[in-house]
């Protein structure tokens, strides 16, 4: 065995050089990632990014063309699902419709040959942790969508699995319920101390819930980091655009720069500015400068880039300005506190930013 790719000690779940092809398309293209014990990891990406395929390989419903899955240092790549001792909550409600809620929760215990009395006691306790005590005798169809997913969670944790896998479990719920459930899942995870791998295409969900987020695109791991690091220092233009809102301003580097260095660029439209190199850049290289809307500063004096307010969109706690520059139209975010002197449409302004907030990525 190749020692180089063993999980570092402490990794609860390890994915090593996972490759899965469907025909000519690599659904998962050599992805490696490690999940620590008790960690909440989100697999985030657009549809077709390979996040679900990775989860299915961890679960044992799909098998890789090459690469390995390890749980607690054990190679489980070819172990059938029912021997992996994992819990899973699915996108669709998968409570067995012919069983009562309590029988559903007791099912995994029954499969583990646990006696009826203990089964019932543990199922009732699990039902209580998801705040549904008293609902045990109902049929799943008599519960709301949110309640059904809570029962599914109780069923997935009642046998104390090593790892809890969640495949977009909240996508079928409406927005308010979804936000409520996000907090609830997070609490449950902390309470039980279980390792969670959570697949979602919703970046807000990932940012809210996860300790770390693995951003995937076209089967490749783009970045694996904490929500804050992903947001503040995205490793690629894709991540910058995918996580949160970002303005992209095409530009040309005026000198060579290493990642993290300040670099002078000529922005589309002709103005010059100082930004931070996110990639290794060379002189004359085409770049894309990413600036978050809340990091753009407006001032009446000149000195920054010239801009004209096109439109102001008021949305309560924040106001978004669409400003026309000599290059692209940018979005500027003003919070209620800073928006006291909200400029009207047509106002000419100067646009500035701190160099560390403007990250220049090599244009693909």
């Amino acid at each position: 065995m190749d020692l180089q790719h063993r999980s570092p000690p402490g990794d609860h779940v390890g994915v090593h050089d996972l490759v899965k092809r469907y025909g000519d398309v690599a659904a998962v293209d050599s992805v490696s990632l490690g999940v620590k014990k008790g960690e909440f990891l989100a697999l985030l990406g657009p549809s077709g990014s390979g996040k679900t395929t990775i989860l299915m390989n961890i679960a044992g419903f799909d098998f890789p063309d090459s690469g390995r899955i390890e749980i607690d240092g054990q190679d489980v790549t070819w172990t059938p699902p029912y021997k992996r001792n994992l819990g899973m909550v699915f996108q669709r409600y998968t409570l067995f419709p012919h069983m009562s809620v309590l029988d559903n929760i007791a099912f995994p215990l029954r499969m583990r040959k646990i006696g009826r009395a203990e089964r019932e006691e543990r199922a009732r306790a699990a039902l209580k942790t998801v705040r549904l005590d008293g609902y045990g005798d109902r049929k799943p169809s008599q519960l709301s969508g949110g309640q059904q997913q809570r029962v599914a969670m109780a069923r997935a944790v009642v046998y104390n699995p090593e790892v809890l896998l969640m495949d977009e479990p909240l996508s079928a719920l409406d927005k308010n319920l979804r936000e409520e459930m996000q907090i609830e899942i997070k609490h449950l995870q902390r309470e039980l101390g279980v390792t969670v791998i959570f697949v979602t295409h919703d970046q807000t969900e990932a940012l809210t819930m996860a300790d770390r987020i693995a951003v995937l695109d076209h089967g490749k791991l783009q970045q694996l980091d904490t929500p804050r690091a992903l947001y503040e220092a995205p490793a690629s233009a894709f991540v910058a655009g995918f996580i949160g809102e970002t303005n992209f301003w095409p530009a040309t580097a005026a000198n060579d720069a290493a990642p993290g260095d300040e670099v002078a660029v000529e922005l589309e439209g002709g103005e010059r500015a100082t930004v931070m190199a996110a990639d290794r850049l060379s002189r004359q290289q085409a770049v894309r400068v990413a600036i978050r809307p809340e990091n753009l500063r407006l001032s009446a004096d000149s000195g920054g880039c010239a801009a004209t307010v096109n439109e102001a969109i008021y949305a309560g706690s924040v106001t978004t300005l669409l400003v026309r520059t000599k290059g692209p139209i940018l979005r500027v975010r003003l919070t209620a506190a800073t928006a006291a002197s909200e400029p009207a449409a047509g106002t000419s302004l100067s646009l500035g930013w701190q160099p560390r907030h403007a990250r220049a990525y090599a244009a693909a």
Partner: protein
Amino acid sequence: MKSRPSRFLLGGRTYSPAVSLLLALPFLLVILLAFLLPLGMLLRESAFAPGFTVEHYRKVFDEPVYLRVMYRTVRISIFVTLISLLLGYPLALLMARARGLQLSLLLIAVLLPLWTSVLVRTYAWLVLLQRDGLINDMLTGLGIIDAPMQLLRTEGAVVLAMSHVLLPFVVLPLYASLRAIPDDYERAAKMLGANGFAVFRHVTLPLSMPGITSGCLMVFLLALGFFVTPALIGGPQQMMLATLVQQQVTELLNWPFAGAIIGVLLFAVLVLVIAFNRVVRLDRFVGQV
């Protein structure tokens, strides 16, 4: 579901009661004139000759010969139902998992016999089972038996041939109900620690119950009144109710007694269908999720 009083939803459109009645009229007329009317006349004859009498019905239950025929009919029908279910379930399961060409071939294999005349299929069994038929020829030729066996005109032969003829009627409802079970349930069960057999026992089998009950009911009801196959394969020794009716009508011209047998059969079928409806209602919530 909200009730939609006196309007009928057809293909996404609703029709007024008058139009609905008009559309259904040709069908209702055929049912009325070709089925309900003659049946009613037959049943009337069984109970009025010309004054009200239960004599013919009493005869059905009093004469040991007829009781034996009834008992045999029910027994054969139960066997046929069980054998069709045992043979049909694995096939339906296979079809529910199959895709593309494999599924088409399986479907054709199930449907092709259904498109062939029952008479033809029954004669095929005659060819196989008769004294100098294929099976006896083969067994004697191989030296397994010395003299040809009596295969035809046995109850086993009747059960075998009827199971073959009626098999699609249990396979198709089973296939439909197995196909309707989302894969997710199976995945969830596996994830929760169930191996292949446990998944089948605790998830697939109970969720396919509507298909099992409707398929079995269909086969059982068809078997109760089956005529061609038992008449040809079983002969007079293995007479079933339908053959008895035919004999009473065409050979003995005893219409009132034939009517009484049909009355009994009809009553039994109605009781079964009503009981079945109760059971299926319980399964309603299954389809809802």
